[in-house]
C-alpha cells in the first residue's frame, strides 16, 4: 500500500483480469441467476457489468426438474432448477447474439453428464463468436448424473478440467462445490490440471420438508442452498483456497451489498459474482459496484488489487 496517505485524485481502478478475461470491474453475475441478459436489461445497463455468466448450458436441451423448484429458507433460497436450458447449439444460435450487442465479457457456464460432454461443450464454445470464457460447473447439486459428483472428487475434477482445457483456447474457470471435506484439495488438483481461474461457491446441498403435506417441498427432493445464509461458508472457502492456490478467484455466495462483496475481496477474491440478490433487487449488481467504488474512494484505495486478500495479513 505505497499510496497510503496520498489522497486519491482520480477514480480508483476497478478493472481486473481473471485468468485472461479482462473485466472493467470485479462485479459479475452468478450463473443461473441472471438468465441470458435480456431479463435484466430493463433494470440495469448491462455494459456496466464486469462480466455476465449465463445459465448452465448442456449438450442437449434440458427440461429441468418438476415444480416446486424453489423454496425460501431463512435468509436463503433452496433451488432445484435442474439445469433447464435450450442446449448449447440453440444457446449459441439464439441467445448468444443478443449479448454481442454489448461490450462485456460473456462467460458460459457448462455442465455435462460425462467428461466427454464437457470436452465437446468446450469445443463448441471455443468456436462460438462472443464467448470470453468458460465456467466449468462441476458442482451442480440438482442433476442426477455428473454435476456435483465431479466436483466432490479431486481426481475427477482435474479430469474434467483437463478435458475442457484440451478443447479450448479460451480462459477456463472451474466452479467449485462447497459440499466437500476439503475444498482446498479440489482446488489444488484443478489448478494442476490447468484451470485459469476458480469460482466458488456453488450451492450447499440442502432440503426442506413441508410439515402439512409431510413431503419434501422441492419436486426434486434435495436442492442447492444459496443466498446470504451461506455467505460465511463461502467467505471461508475463498479464504482457505486463496492461501494455498495461486489462481484468481471469483467469489460468490450471499452477496447482497457492497460490504458483502468486500468481505470476499478481502478474503482473497479478485472478482465477485452476484446471484440471488438479483431476485431481491434487480439493480443489486450496480449497487454492489457503486458501493465498492465508494469504499475505495473513502479508504483511498487506488486499485482494487490492493484489497484482494488484504485480510490474510492479519491471520494466525
Amino acid at each position, binding site marked *: 500500500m505505497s499510496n497510503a496517505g496520498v489522497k486519491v485524485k482520480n477514480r480508483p481502478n476497478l478493472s481486473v483480469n481473471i485468468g485472461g478475461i479482462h473485466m472493467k470491474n470485479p462485479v459479475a453475475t452468478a450463473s*443461473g441467476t441472471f438468465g441470458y441478459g435480456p431479463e435484466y436489461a430493463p433494470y440495469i445497463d448491462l455494459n456496466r457489468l464486469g462480466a455476465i455468466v449465463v445459465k448452465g448450458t448442456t449438450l442437449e436441451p434440458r427440461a*429441468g426438474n418438476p*415444480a416446486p*423448484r*424453489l423454496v*425460501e429458507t431463512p435468509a*436463503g433460497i433452496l433451488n432445484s432448477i435442474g439445469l433447464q436450458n435450450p442446449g448449447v447449439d440453440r444457446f449459441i444460435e439464439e441467445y448468444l447474439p443478443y449479448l454481442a450487442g454489448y461490450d462485456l465479457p460473456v462467460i458460459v457456464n457448462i455442465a455435462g453428464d460425462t467428461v466427454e460432454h464437457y470436452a465437446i461443450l468446450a469445443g463448441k464454445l471455443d468456436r462460438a463468436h462472443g464467448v470470453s470464457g468458460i465456467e466449468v460447473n462441476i458442482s451442480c447439486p440438482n442433476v442426477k448424473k455428473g454435476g456435483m459428483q465431479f466436483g466432490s472428487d479431486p481426481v475427477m475434477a482435474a479430469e474434467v478440467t483437463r478435458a475442457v482445457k484440451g478443447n479450448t483456447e479460451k480462459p477456463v474457470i472451474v466452479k467449485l462445490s462447497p459440499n466437500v471435506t476439503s475444498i482446498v484439495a479440489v482446488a489444488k488438483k484443478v489448478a494442476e490440471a490447468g484451470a485459469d481461474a476458480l469460482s466458488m461457491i456453488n450451492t450447499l446441498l440442502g432440503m426442506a420438508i413441508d410439515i402439512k403435506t409431510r413431503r419434501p417441498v422441492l419436486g426434486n427432493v434435495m436442492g442447492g442452498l444459496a443466498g446470504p445464509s451461506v455467505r460465511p461458508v463461502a467467505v471461508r472457502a475463498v479464504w482457505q483456497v486463496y492461501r494455498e492456490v495461486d489462481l484468481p478467484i471469483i467469489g460468490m455466495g450471499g452477496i447482497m451489498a457492497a460490504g458483502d462483496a468486500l468481505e470476499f475481496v478481502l478474503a482473497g477474491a479478485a472478482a465477485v459474482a452476484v446471484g440471488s440478490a438479483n431476485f431481491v433487487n434487480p439493480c443489486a449488481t450496480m449497487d454492489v459496484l457503486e458501493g465498492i467504488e465508494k469504499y475505495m474512494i473513502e479508504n483511498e484505495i487506488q486499485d482494487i488489487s490492493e484489497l484482494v486478500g488484504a485480510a490474510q495479513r492479519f491471520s494466525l
Partner: protein
Amino acid sequence: MDAGIVKQQEVAEGYFRLTVFAPAVAVAAKPGQFLHMRCGDTLDPLLRRPISIHAVNRDKGEVALLYKVVGKGTALLAQKGKGDQVNLLGPLGKGFTLPERNEKVCVVAGGIGIAPLFCLLQELTARNHSAAVFLGAATGSQLLCAGEMERCGHIVHIATDDGSAGFPGTVTGLFEKTITPGSSSVDRVYACGPRRMLKRLCEIIRLEGIPGEVSVEERMGCGVGACLSCACKTRGEGNGVAYKRVCMEGPVFPVGEVVWE
C-alpha cells in the same frame, strides 16, 4: 421502485386490500399481470412476493392489491399502513386476452383467486361488457368483491364450501350445474383459484369445448424470467411437455396448455 401506500384495509378477516400510488404501473397494467413485492426490509423474508394487480385507477395513478395473509411475507405487508413505502417491481407477466365484444364471458374465482379477475371485470365494465361471475369461498364472510361486481352489472353466482351463502359446494360444482351442457351459453371462461379447482374446471370446459384462460401460481424467485424457478408444466411442441415460466409466459395460460398433475 418505491410506492407510497394510500390505503390499507382489512376487507375480511385475514384478507387485505392495499392501495398504492404508482402512476407508471397504473398506466401500464393489464388485467392478469402481477407486481413483485418486497414485504420487509431485512433478509428474512428474503424474496419478493408476487401479488396480482387487483384494480387500477389510472386517473388517480393508483393500483390496488387484494391479498390473503398466509405466511410471513403477507403478514409483514399487512402491518404497513398509509404513508409507508413499499418496494415493487412490475407490472410483470402476461395478462388475460380480452374477449371479443359479443362473447358470453364466464369468470370463475376460487377464494383469493378473485384478485386478478376483478381487474379483468373492471376492464370489461369499462367496455360495457358484462360477465357471469362464479365466486366461491370457504365461507360467506370470505366472499370478496361480490357487491362491487354486481353494481358494475356483472351477474354473480355464489358458492360456499360450508353452505353459509349461495350454493353449498365448490364453485366448479356450481359452474357445472349452471351452464347448459352442449349449448353455447358460454363463449369464454377466465379462472383463478386453487390448483385443484382449476384442474377440475379445465376438465369441464374442455369437455364442453369452451376456450378459456387460467391464472396459475408457482413459487417465484426473480419474477423477471431469469431464474427458471416458476416452472409450469405445459404441453409443448408435438406431444411433448415443456416447462414455461409463470412470471414471463404466464401467469395466464390458455386452458389447454397447462398440464395438471
